[in-house]
């Protein structure tokens, strides 16, 4: 089942292209990591998916239903409901935590009070405290409670872990995973800090300069990429798509993508293979996608 599908999605702000003919499909029920450098188009993509921002061209579908920013009615049908949480986790500063839940209940046709309350219960947020006096972590929890209480099929979280201390970050990701497992919703979590995703995301969508450069199940992606190190060579010693090549004196290092799975530890005389981490994988793709762009800019 597909949670989010984009077809030739483009968004331009004047002469700046934030999303450039993006096409992808993201599976339902799980946590999807949307990764990209600052300005890669993550927030724009999420805002379009939430129906807050109109696309310049192309289409985006949530649970098979086309999102139209001109008609901002959020569907009551829970299969197509989207909730979005911005980077700064906006809350009404003068509202108490309890007021924020009332806000959620009163501004939504579908609202699960118990679900929202139980989220706050887990983090022991004082209900009477004004939101303006909450810590950054507590603000994130309240904002998440309001988002979750709206019973979304797809929850879009734009850098939700930014400004959180490591303990709060770990708690939020842990509870999110539990919530996903319990409710079956899809969480799309954007970040430019890949280390935040360790053990969290099941699926990856990597954006660079407004285009998806890598998408897939994280375990499959890691399994299909390998680092080969050996004597200086123009090509790697085995077939596969070269994602990155690095030559240093008498030594060459290749990161290749093999469609048929990982290689044994030794692939050829003098060569060794090693798995790569998620951070290395994303950095490799981001760097390789930046090179042609820089070359184009230099040529221009």
């Amino acid at each position, binding site marked *: 089942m597909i949670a989010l599908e984009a077809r030739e999605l483009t968004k331009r702000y004047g002469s700046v292209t934030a999303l450039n003919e993006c096409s992808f499909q993201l599976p339902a029920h799980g946590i999807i990591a949307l990764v990209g450098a600052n300005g890669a188009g993550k927030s724009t993509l999420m805002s379009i998916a939430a129906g807050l921002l109109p696309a310049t061209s192309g289409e985006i579908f949530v649970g098979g239903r086309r999102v139209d920013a001109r008609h901002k009615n959020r569907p009551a049908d829970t299969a197509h409901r989207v909730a979005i949480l911005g980077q700064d986790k906006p809350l009404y500063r003068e509202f108490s935590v309890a007021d924020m839940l009332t806000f959620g209940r009163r501004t939504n*046709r579908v609202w699960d009070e118990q679900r929202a309350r139980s989220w706050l219960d887990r983090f022991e947020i004082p209900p009477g405290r004004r939101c303006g006096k909450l810590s950054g972590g507590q603000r994130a929890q309240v904002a998440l409670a309001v988002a979750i209480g709206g019973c979304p099929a797809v929850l879009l979280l734009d850098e939700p872990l930014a400004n959180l201390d490591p303990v709060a970050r770990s708690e939020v990701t842990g509870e999110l995973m539990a919530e996903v497992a319990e409710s079956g919703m899809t969480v799309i979590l954007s970040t430019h800090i890949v280390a935040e995703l360790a053990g969290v995301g099941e699926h990856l969508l990597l954006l660079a300069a407004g285009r998806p450069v890598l998408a897939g199940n994280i375990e499959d992606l890691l399994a299909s990429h390998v680092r080969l190190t050996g004597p200086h060579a123009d090509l790697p010693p085995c077939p596969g798509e070269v994602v990155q090549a690095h030559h240093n004196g008498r030594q060459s290092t290749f990161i290749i993508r093999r469609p048929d799975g990982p290689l044994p530890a030794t692939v050829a005389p003098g060569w060794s293979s090693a798995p790569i981490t998620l951070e290395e994988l994303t950095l490799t793709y981001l760097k390789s996608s930046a090179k042609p762009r820089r070359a184009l800019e230099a040529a221009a």
Partner: protein
Amino acid sequence: MSSALTQAGLPATPAASPGRNHGGARLADLAWLTWRQHRAAIIAGLVLAAVVTAGLLYLAARITTINTECGNTECPTGAAAAAPLFGPFGLAGLSGDLALAVMLMPLLAGVFLGVPLLAREHEQRTLLLAWSQDITPQRWLWTKLAILGGLTAAAGAAMSAAVAHLAHVASIATGLDLFSGLAFLVTGWLPLVQSLAWLAVGVALGAAYRRTLPAIFTTLAGYAAAYYLVQWLYPTFRAPLTGLVPIGNNQSSPPGLGSNILVIQSGSGTIYDAAGHPVSPATIVSLCSSGSGKLLSAPCLVQHHFMSLLRYQPGSRIPEFHLILAGGYLALGAVAVGVVWLLARRTSLSAG
């Protein structure tokens, strides 16, 4: 721990049934949201309006008593009954102070209710929160604007009625001219219309600037500019009438021209005799020149019943002028509402 509290101490709300429920995002829900967000400004505004209205009605009652004692005409100079009207804390002075407060209420509505409606949402980035729930942005905006507009209209109507009554009784007691100054600008339901117009202007400026302070300062500047523009323009809404008044007349409403006239120009140009015929300068000099032969003797001019030309707006035009002004303010409000609609439609939010 009380049974009304959940595990983490969240108070149980009666409307909040466990599990999923339906039916939010109705008018009552938006009314709650509007009240919760703007309750400080709403309470302060309503209390201020109530105090001002009560003050106006109290003064009107006191002045009505004096009018009764004086036979429902202007009290003779020095009459004991009229003593409370004048002096540093006299009823006339206090009426002027309260009329000034009424004059400023529309500005307060614009600054404290209008501007924050969208500017504060933009500043605190809460528009993303509000507009990503089940209420459409247009419904959210227009319902809130209608609620705040309704409260503003109620307060404006109460003050308008009270100040109009006070102006009426004060005009009897003190001969207050109802076609000039504050007396004209705060009567004829203008406070009500102005309050709605400046509320809309405040919302529009808040939407345009997306910042509270610049929007407030622009509202203040706009209000001051409109005040002086109105003062300058309203005497010319219609071509003034002309009439002859005796030279030396000190009454605000010369005999024969009706009450509450607005004088546009007086005492210049040709001098007329009692029959209304122009008198040549040579004749006047020969009759009334003082010793030096250049200056005219004022008592002589009065003695000969000479008259001068007066250009004025008659008091009967007050309702018409009020209507023109109200139309202008309503047009200003309508333009502001149009700007709000346009800006709201063009507002695209981004999570980042």
